[in-house]
């Protein structure tokens, strides 16, 4: 079995699972309970928060636990829009965001907010000058992802940060769900970033847990009203076993981060080397520093991505169409469509996504299997003639 679908979800690490189990069994009390069992849970919660803050280079008070990346994104965007609505109703995002960002903006549009969606170039990257032109006196929020989930483009977060230095009242949100542990953190998490989302199941931790970084002093409206957990900003009993698991997973993730990223990059490079210059194959994730090391998106023209996914699955190789969340709606393969890739090519795209446990041998096996498939379909489609 070869699992090349790590951007959809990763396998939970056994050590993380052990932490999850132990905390669930031994430290089960509600962190808000007054008794000493509750106190123990509370201490564990804060110890997890402290560890995560140290690893990410933030303050402990800046980490807020959520149910995952989707909630963190929704909260950052809607929370800012509502909090700052008195000051303006103009919001800016890119045209290649994950559905949890894109649809949050659509929802706000329906409530009367004005949304500018920045276009992207043929590598899927927004331009800082487009952003500069879009800013106006009513703008309260800019939200641009760090690493694109479909093709792995690294967005110019540092350059956007420089621009936004001149607009201190605009809140800057970066969806970094695909960006942690890929040895690019300083490029996607600058001091100008006010809000940033992470999701634990993308790095070998349980699903159902994530976090929002919120810079000290920045205000967002809570979306959950209730018991006042997380300093009154995100009510709901904390998911302590998952939080502890996430804290452990981040520690493990950032241990030898550079080596892990190099390993993923080597796998990607090997497959790209095989694919490039093959008639009918279009690579959207070139091997260069503008792209994350773990995502490789390409299309075999004339064959639907879905068909390729199922053909590879017969050989126990698991990949995605451009993103798991959009795979049932291939027509809206959003990043590629935004890049003005022709529909018939966009619907042919598949995404391979690696983690540190993948190997070069797996890359070889993939190439061997794919080569047969390629030759078969090439003949059917009269490619290279």
């Amino acid at each position, binding site marked *: 079995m070869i699992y090349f679908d790590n951007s959809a979800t990763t396998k939970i690490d056994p050590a993380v699972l052990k932490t999850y189990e132990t905390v669930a069994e031994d430290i089960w009390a509600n962190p808000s309970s007054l008794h000493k069992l509750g106190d123990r849970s509370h*201490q564990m919660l804060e110890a997890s928060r402290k560890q995560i803050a140290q690893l990410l280079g933030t303050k402990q008070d800046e980490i807020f636990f959520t149910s995952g990346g989707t909630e963190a994104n929704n909260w950052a965007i809607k929370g800012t829009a509502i909090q700052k609505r008195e000051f303006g109703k103009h919001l800016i995002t890119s045209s290649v965001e994950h559905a949890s960002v894109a649809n949050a903006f659509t929802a706000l549009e329906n409530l009367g907010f004005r949304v500018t969606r920045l276009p992207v170039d043929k590598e899927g990257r927004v331009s800082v000058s487009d952003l500069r032109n879009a800013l106006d006196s009513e703008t309260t929020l800019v939200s641009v992802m760090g690493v694109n989930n479909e093709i792995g483009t690294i967005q110019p977060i540092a350059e956007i940060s420089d621009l936004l230095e001149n607009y201190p009242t605009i809140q800057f949100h970066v969806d970094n769900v695909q960006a942690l542990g890929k040895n690019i953190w300083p490029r996607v998490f600058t001091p100008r970033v006010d809000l940033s989302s992470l999701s634990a199941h993308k790095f070998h931790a349980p699903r159902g847990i994530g976090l929002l970084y919120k810079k000290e002093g920045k205000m967002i409206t809570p979306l959950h009203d209730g018991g006042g957990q997380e300093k009154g900003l995100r009510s709901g009993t904390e998911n302590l076993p998952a939080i502890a698991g996430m804290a452990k997973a981040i520690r493990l993730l950032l241990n030898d981060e550079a080596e892990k990223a190099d390993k993923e990059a080597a796998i990607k490079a090997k497959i790209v080397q095989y694919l490039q210059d093959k008639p009918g194959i279009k690579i959207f994730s070139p091997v260069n520093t503008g792209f994350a090391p773990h995502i490789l998106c390409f299309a075999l023209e004339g064959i639907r991505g879905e068909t390729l996914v199922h053909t590879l699955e017969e050989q126990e190789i698991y990949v995605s169409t451009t993103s798991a969340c959009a795979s049932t709606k291939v027509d809206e393969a959003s990043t590629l469509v935004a890049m003005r890739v022709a529909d018939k090519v966009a619907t042919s795209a598949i995404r391979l996504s690696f983690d540190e446990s993948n190997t070069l041998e797996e890359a070889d096996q993939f190439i061997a299997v794919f080569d047969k498939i390629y030759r078969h379909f090439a003949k059917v489609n009269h490619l290279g003639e």
Partner: protein
Amino acid sequence: MKYTEIMIRYGELSTKGKNRKDFIGRLAGNVTKVLRDFPEVEIHPKHDRLHVILNGAPFTEIDQRLKKVFGIQTYSPTVKVAKTLADIEKTSLELMQATFKKGMTFKVNTKRSDHHFEYDTNELNSLVGDYLFTNMDSLKVEMKHPDLVLRIEVRQDAIYLSNQLLHGAGGMPVGTGGRAVMMLSGGIDSPVASYLALKRGVDIEMVHFYSPPYTTEKAMAKAKELTAILASYSGRINFIAVPFAEIQETIKEKVPEGYLMTVQRRFMLRLADEIRAKRNELAIFNGESVGQVASQTLESMFAINDVTTTPVVRPVATMDKTEIIALAEKIGTFALSIQPFEDCCTIFAPPRPKTKPKVDKVREYEERLDVAGLIQRALDGIKITAIRPGEKFLDKQMEEDTALL
């Protein structure tokens, strides 16, 4: 820099006459205690110096511990070298390079007890001085107030080099000042008073009153952890926990509100005194400071002190709160002291305590109580724990739990 030994100079010894031997013996014992986990270290007490031979033990770690031992005035990390000029020069240069910062001045100061050594003090001063001067950039000689003094001691067995004079904790070795009980709450003042008692060489045992279920386990854990911080100045401290709830409940029931506090304090002092007597100790220490709260007016102290003739020593009696806080920060107890756990002093505190209680009134109210019985039952419930330096009580569980992360 690899130091071979530490030379320790005593404080306040000139006045101690015949007790000098006790002082030195006790200091050597206390140093041994704090360095217990370095079995390779040898400790040699001499009449004018204490020599700690490192035998490879790490100087920085040992330095951290020695800093806190009372009775040490100054100390110098030292390197022992063979009796040749080349060895002296080579090691002197290493020593100076390890501590030198740009712009510093220096001089060489030689002492010679081996008068057969081929160079005399003046020769050594100028030979080594010249050598350092030519081998180090921007080093300046200064005779009056140099930043660094390279000391060369020529003795029979070898030559000893040092260029740092570090300040010790001063005071008297713990144990040379007799034994006493210390009334330790969880507040800011009593840990500071404990520190000052230890500094004068008094060996203390903590008496802590607790009142479950009115006070939580955390309040007691906090007092124990404060004791563990203080134990780093003395080696080990006994923590005597005295149950106090029954006494407080009885007083609340039977004594008028204005006098609740005074009567409670008298019971605490009686209990402290009983414990002192049983343990053959000579005094009671506490953290009272004149005028700080209602129980600490002179009238209150007079009414409370009425239950004993034992000396009650109050090291912080005349200090301002800001001075006490500054010292608490310096000795590392402040952050812990301000953690908000209810202690037994606050739970039955009346809203308007008498600041000028009358002794005859207090005595009259106490006649309604079975004083002897209450005292006896509290004494029967005492628990004694030996607490070691740095031991954790508050976050013990958390430390285990965070190993999961």
